């Protein structure tokens, strides 16, 4: 049996259609109103001004003093200068490389606020700019120079063996390339260090502990006591990334004061130090270990004989020096046995 459609069904469909159309119309209307409201409130397109903004004056022009004309067009700068009492014939211009629009005052001499004494005024106007060769300059020097050229500078630090801290290593863009508004400088980071006592050695006969040398407490020391006929040895992995090894070397104040010991240091297989350590004669050592894979420290009894006991060789505050990434890697390296 097929039911007769109820009389209300067409009416309901119509009502639903009207409702649907009404909803669509409401949404469409709301979108349209929103759009126009947005346009009305927001005020149209953005506009950017890529022309120079002229400074009429940076401070009330005071006759007899050099006005601030930085950023001015040549015309406005001359105007301000003449208004301050500078004779037009005393004003000269020169071109200085600078990013952006050309012909604007980017430097002035004498500087703003100087008293005029019949002196000549030189205005540096912006001209085409290319990246200068800053390699080897200090960061401060490079920054000053680039800032004057209108560049925004970002700095990246990188360790470079042999380079001074904050020495410019490379630039982007490269030398001679057109200068852009942003310049990236790669500069040498300062050396950093870690105590050997805080580094896992490959092999170690010494103890990391505080020691007193010549009356000074050196909290982060390696104390090595050679056994009879058997040197005390400590070997560290350097991964060819460590720059140098430094320490204060001597015999501990609380050890045997009569028997000197011998310290032998190898950089890989290369002997780089071999000297006698005597009581009360602590000395600073700093040894290059650049490109070395291993550092081997060996403390032998005096002259290599076996009759020396209780002499404690101290490598006070012994530390490895290098770039932060290498030192951090060495410090965190727990793979060494």
């Amino acid at each position, binding site marked *: 049996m097929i039911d007769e459609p109820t009389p209300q069904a067409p009416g309901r469909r119509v009502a639903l259609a009207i409702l649907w159309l009404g909803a669509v119309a409401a949404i469409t209307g709301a979108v349209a109103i929103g759009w126009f409201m947005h346009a009305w409130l927001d005020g149209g397109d953005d506009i950017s001004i890529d022309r120079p903004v002229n400074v009429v004056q940076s401070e009330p022009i005071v006759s007899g003093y050099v006005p601030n004309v930085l950023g001015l067009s040549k015309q406005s700068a001359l105007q301000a200068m003449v208004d301050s009492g500078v004779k037009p014939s005393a004003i000269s211009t020169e071109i200085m490389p600078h990013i952006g629009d050309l012909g604007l005052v980017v430097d002035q001499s004498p500087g703003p606020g100087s008293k005029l004494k019949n002196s000549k005024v030189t205005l540096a106007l912006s001209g085409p700019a290319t990246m200068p060769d800053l390699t080897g300059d200090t960061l401060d020097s490079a920054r000053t120079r680039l800032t004057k050229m209108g560049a*925004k500078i970002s700095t990246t630090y990188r360790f470079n063996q042999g380079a001074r801290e904050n020495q410019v290593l490379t630039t982007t863009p490269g030398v001679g390339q057109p200068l852009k508004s942003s310049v990236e400088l790669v500069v040498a980071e300062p050396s950093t260090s870690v105590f050997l006592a805080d580094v896992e050695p490959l092999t170690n006969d010494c103890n990391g502990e505080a020691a007193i040398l010549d009356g000074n*407490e050196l909290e982060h020391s390696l104390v090595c006591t050679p056994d009879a006929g058997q040197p005390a040895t400590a070997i560290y992995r350097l991964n060819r990334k460590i720059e140098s090894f430094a320490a204060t070397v001597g015999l501990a104040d609380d050890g045997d004061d009569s028997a000197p010991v011998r310290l032998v240091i190898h950089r890989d297989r290369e002997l780089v130090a071999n000297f006698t350590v005597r009581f009360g004669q602590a000395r600073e050592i700093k040894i290059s270990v650049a490109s070395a894979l291993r550092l081997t420290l060996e403390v032998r009894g005096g002259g290599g004989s076996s009759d020396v006991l209780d002499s404690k060789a101290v490598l006070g505050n012994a530390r490895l020096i290098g770039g932060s990434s290498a030192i951090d890697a060495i410090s965190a390296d727990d793979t060494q046995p």
Partner: protein
Amino acid sequence: MIQLTRPLACVFMALIVLSQFLASPPASAAPSSADAPIMLVVDSSGSMSEDDGTGTIKIDGAKVALLDFLNNISENTPLGLLSYPSKSGGNCDPGLPAFDITNRDPATMSAFIRGLEPDGDTPTAEALRTAFEEIKQSHGSGTLVLVSDGESTCDPPCDVANELADQGVDIDTITVGFRISDSGREELECIADALNGRYVDANDNGELQGILDDLSQPKLTISQLSNPARVVAEAGGEADGRVKIEATIKNEGKREATDVSMRLRFDLNGPGVARPIVRIGNLAGGASLKVAWQVWPPATAIDHRVNFTVIGSATNSPTDAQRTGTFRVIDLNSAADAGSILKGKKRIAILGDSYSSGEGAESYIRDSDRIGSACHQSSDTYLREVFALPDSNVIACSGAVANDISAANQPNSKPAQAAELAQLYERKTGSVQAVVMTLGGNDFQFPTLARSCILASHTCDDRVYDKPGLELWGGTPFAEFKNRGVGNQGSAERAAIKSAYESIHAVLNSAQAVARRGSIAPIIVLGYPLPIPLTGRSCLPMADKLSRGEILAVGGFALELNAVIEGIVADLRSEGKAVFYVPNTENALLPDHTVCDPPDRAFARSLVSADPAVFEMFPRITGAIAAKNPTYFWSKDFKNSMRSASELVHPNAKGYAAVSSAILRWTRGPGGQAANEFLKTVEAEPTATLSTGLTSDGMVDENGNLILQGGSRYPLTVDGYAPQSDASAFLRSQPQLAAHAVADQGGRIKVEVPIPSELEAGQHHIEVVGFGQNGKQLKKTVAFQITADRTPSVGLILAAIALVATLLGLLLFGLSRGARAQLRTSALHEGAV
């Protein structure tokens, strides 16, 4: 974002920025802390082995922060480190500094930082005392930074701090609570308070690093930035057209920022150089400085949003401080933007002189740009385009003086301006709804002064030469020139100008006109726009033509001229006349659109763009060259030179648009609103009854104008005067006393007014001046016209005779040919027959 094309962008050169330092102490005045020693006191007790809340062990985070600090700090900063407790001493032993205060040496010092191990108690007070002594002994003063994550377990730190404070050592103390308990924080706060320092919270190692960064390097921020959200384009240097951008740069770090500069940049995405550059010098730690710029956006930025960035940088700061802002440029220069006094007005007449006729704007209308006419009238004069006024509404005429309002200007073949005003619209939709005008400059010889300053080889701030070519003859001392005109309170020029306004008012607001219009119409008198810089800055491009002294002379004269006109207008208003002065227009070309500015920026006929021949013309006219070459006067060169000379120191089309903007601003502002209110109090000019003995049909033309004939006498009756008071009747077109009378008991004056036979055709009026019943002066005016002589000219008669003769000749010729032909035909017929 729309990037403007280069040519379009050139228009933006009109952006003017006035950069100025506002009230702030000199940046370098604060004491420098660049090389002051820093002693770091770091808690390495057992609790530092706990997590800092970010998954990092506290001591590890502290090591990273300290190593970073060590790398960033100035090479010249002496540095010391004390970590407590001592690993070898007792629980309350703070130990010795890992390294004493000494020159920064990362290669050595960093190992000590990496070697920090958390263990033991928290002898904060003891460590504080040790570090304090280290600073005191080594340098005498410095900065002490104490970082701790817990409450002291030994001596009470607050007591120790108070004890140290009593020593009076200059030590800047910063205590840092590293994810610390409340009681621990209270201890550190107490230490900071006792030592006049400050306490800072560090909730994780990142915050600790930030705090230490502040110590190691300058930290520039733009702490405040303010600017209006909307601004009107090209508002002549007035407040509503100015974007004042104020930015405060602050060095929130401890280290002095060196060679700090502030820049304002409008090209956010492009590679352009931010400018203007404002060099501040060094900025000490904690110091701030406010810099302000003033920007007047150009009309080309209308309906756009202008984004800008304020950038602060220092040579030793790793990052620039920057903050962005935006403002929107809007246009309020349409008729719809007018205030009530001009809103909806469609019948505005422009009267007066060259600053109203549009001299300098080109687009000259009718035949005004021809040799022999000094009356340039331009379609680009003010308000014409804004209100879509027809050219015929520009009644103003170059060179017009006050007398030209009521009398015809014969040299220019121009009728009286008041007469033209009366005729305007009368036949169509009603009388004029407002008059806008400039007047008085020619009366006070402003053109003479300008010509003398620009064209004469001598300076006009000393002597004024009426004709530059005659300057060797002497000239008038400037002071005398000024005093006999604009500087003379009782000068005839002032009376003439006042009378001119009265004449216009009589026509504009006659009872008949007011009845037809239904309201009083205002006369809006504009201040002359200053064509030269207000500040007396040099006119560099034309320094040889207009010196700084001359600029001051011209500017001073123009300001005085405007003041006089404003005074006359005020007088008239006090007498109940609907005359108003617009001061805004005085600044329409300022600050940098004057004759002294480059042609692409100037809103006036720039001296730079003036025809060079102008500067030679006057000597040539008066010299032998012109005498030898009389055809010069008919040449195109002469015409161009004359035009260029006339246009000097006048606005150009952009300048008149700027004047329009200034007028509209005035209508919207308090001045315009007050004027609109005042209009409601003004009464129509009283109707004077003229009884001529003739029929009214003969007296009044089809437009309702009263028509009189020269050489006749007309009885005039005027009511409203005090009984038995004296009154005088003046003819104002050619000022003269016409009659004198005494009012009768009813206050009525009956007098017979003689109209001179030589009175020129055009609009005139009779002014009856007496005293009203309230004792105040009462002036009533009746306008009339003298019709033009309708006697045909001799030329016309001759031409007519010639025409008639020609027609007759042709007729006779035709008749004679017809007669001959008829005779020939008759003869043939006769022969045949």
